[in-house]
């Protein structure tokens, strides 16, 4: 069997796997095959060490203290900001705002820029494949402002209908909030075209980068997006830290979000003046340890190289797609020409949850359900799917194990 496997990438996967303690864990007597990477990736030792080292040697509150620990903690925290700036190619470090994650980043824009700029009758465009996190904040805003939410439809392959998008665009469009990569289908959207078209009618663009940042080279200046949001935990970093990138000119004029410490310049009971960027949006003591460790995750990815990672994941995707297509009555949802390592599927007559339970008993971790994209599931007329999503540490052998486990589950269920 193994000799038939094609040679796929230059990635030293065996060495990489050794850096992930959780991949050494066994379940039901077998190593865990972790294919739920679109939900969250596992963490390399360097990230885990960065968190514990921070608490063991550096812990202190940042930006205020003048003692050595405070200085070191501040330097480490700010070093991550610069690392993120370079990672997504932002022009300025102060364009990087730390949040709890993508969801908070999107809500921040909706509650600041949105409240300031959206008026009755305005339109916000999203797509049919958005995660609930990029639907609900805009729904709330539209409700409050009596604005309208417009939705770009998709085709059966799971690709945006760009003609329909162009028809939706008008001088009423104030914002296009769209995902770069679909979490349920893996579709990579033509984000540059989407942004250029939006700008041509004077609309801003927020890119939900939650699923893209771990797979693709991100250059926010080249893309020319106005906002870009992503989460640390989906790029091998810790949970509880995320990023909002915004163009400096926008962030400067936007109103503040949360009030509190860190975000002020001067406070009196009569009036408060706010701190400069980026601190104006970072009220209160932030998640210092996890933010510091996010740099370790970015270093980890940079050391391997995003091109290498992408190549490896594409090889896994192609191989897994080929193998799964050979299983009778298995239907893959999302066959976009351009997609990341995500395969959503169903087997006729089998509820996704039943498949998930039996795969779990065979040490295969996949996601089942609607993946927080209920409108998308509606579009395909299914209650949910089984989703396997790949990361740089996954192997062809693991794909084989999954395929075998799926076949066994089908036999048990039908």
């Amino acid at each position, binding site marked *: 069997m193994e000799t038939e496997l094609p040679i796929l990438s230059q990635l030293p996967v065996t060495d990489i796997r050794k850096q992930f303690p959780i991949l050494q864990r066994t379940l*039901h007597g077998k190593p865990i095959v972790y294919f739920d990477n679109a939900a969250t990736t596992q963490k390399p030792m360097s990230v885990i060490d960065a968190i514990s080292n921070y608490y063991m040697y550096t812990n202190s509150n940042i930006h205020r203290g003048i003692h050595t620990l405070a200085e070191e903690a501040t330097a480490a925290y700010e070093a991550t900001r610069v690392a993120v700036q370079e990672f997504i190619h932002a022009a300025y470090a102060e364009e990087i705002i730390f949040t709890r994650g993508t969801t908070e980043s999107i809500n921040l824009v909706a509650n600041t820029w949105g409240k300031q700029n959206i008026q009755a009758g305005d339109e916000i465009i999203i797509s049919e494949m958005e995660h609930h996190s990029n639907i609900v904040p805009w729904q709330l805003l539209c409700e409050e402002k009596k604005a309208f939410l417009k939705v770009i439809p998709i085709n059966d392959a799971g690709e945006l209908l760009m003609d329909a998008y162009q028809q939706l665009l008008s001088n009423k469009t104030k914002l296009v909030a769209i995902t770069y990569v679909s979490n349920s289908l893996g579709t990579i959207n033509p984000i540059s075209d989407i942004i250029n078209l939006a700008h041509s009618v004077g609309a801003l663009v927020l890119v939900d980068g939650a699923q893209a940042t771990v797979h693709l080279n991100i250059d926010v200046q080249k893309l020319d997006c106005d906002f870009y949001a992503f989460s640390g935990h989906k790029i091998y970093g810790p949970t509880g830290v995320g990023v909002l990138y915004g163009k400096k000119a926008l962030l400067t004029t936007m109103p503040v979000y949360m009030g509190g410490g860190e975000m002020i310049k001067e406070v009196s009971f009569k009036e408060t003046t706010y701190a400069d960027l980026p601190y104006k949006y970072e009220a209160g003591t932030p998640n210092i340890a996890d933010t510091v460790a996010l740099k370790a995750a970015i270093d980890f990815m940079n050391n391997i190289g995003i091109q290498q990672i992408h190549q490896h994941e594409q090889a896994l995707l192609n191989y897994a797609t080929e193998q799964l297509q050979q299983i009778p009555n298995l239907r893959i949802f999302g066959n976009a020409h351009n997609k990341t390592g995500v395969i959503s599927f169903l087997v006729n007559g089998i*509820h*996704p*949850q*039943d498949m998930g*339970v*039996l795969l779990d*008993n065979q040490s295969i971790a996949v996601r*089942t*359900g*609607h993946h927080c994209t209920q409108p998308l599931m509606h579009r395909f007329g299914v*209650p*949910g799917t089984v989703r396997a999503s790949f990361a740089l540490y996954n192997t062809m052998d693991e794909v084989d194990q999954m395929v075998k486990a799926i076949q066994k589950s089908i036999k*048990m*269920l039908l």
Partner: protein
Amino acid sequence: MIESAAIAEREAAIVEAFALLDTWEEKYEYIIDLGKQLPPLEEKYKVADNIIKGCQSTVWLVASFSDGKVYFKADSDAVIVKGLVSLLIQVLSGLSPDEILQAQLGFLQEIGMMSHLAQTRSNGLRAMIQQMKHYALAFQSIQS
């Protein structure tokens, strides 16, 4: 609370049946069979009012009350959940409201199916047990 002898007996029978099943495959095949054998609920009962909504699978539950006993019928769109539902019906259907309210359902632990009550499963099973007890409570108050 002490479980009634009837419930203890029914649970013991299930635990005994599972004791004969050695592997996880055999256990799940048994549950899947139970799921397939549970008569499907008539369409007229598959209405929104009878739905116990889990995040991923749907369970329909109806209850009736006669001669001081509560009778349950249920269905699910996922066969493993349906099999577990079938076990719950085996244990709880045809008993008095008092007996149902006192049920501890420790057998789920003993047959190694507790994970299905975990919150992440979101399969409606936990909510189904609650709903069965709510019915029992409602019928108990009618009775008194």
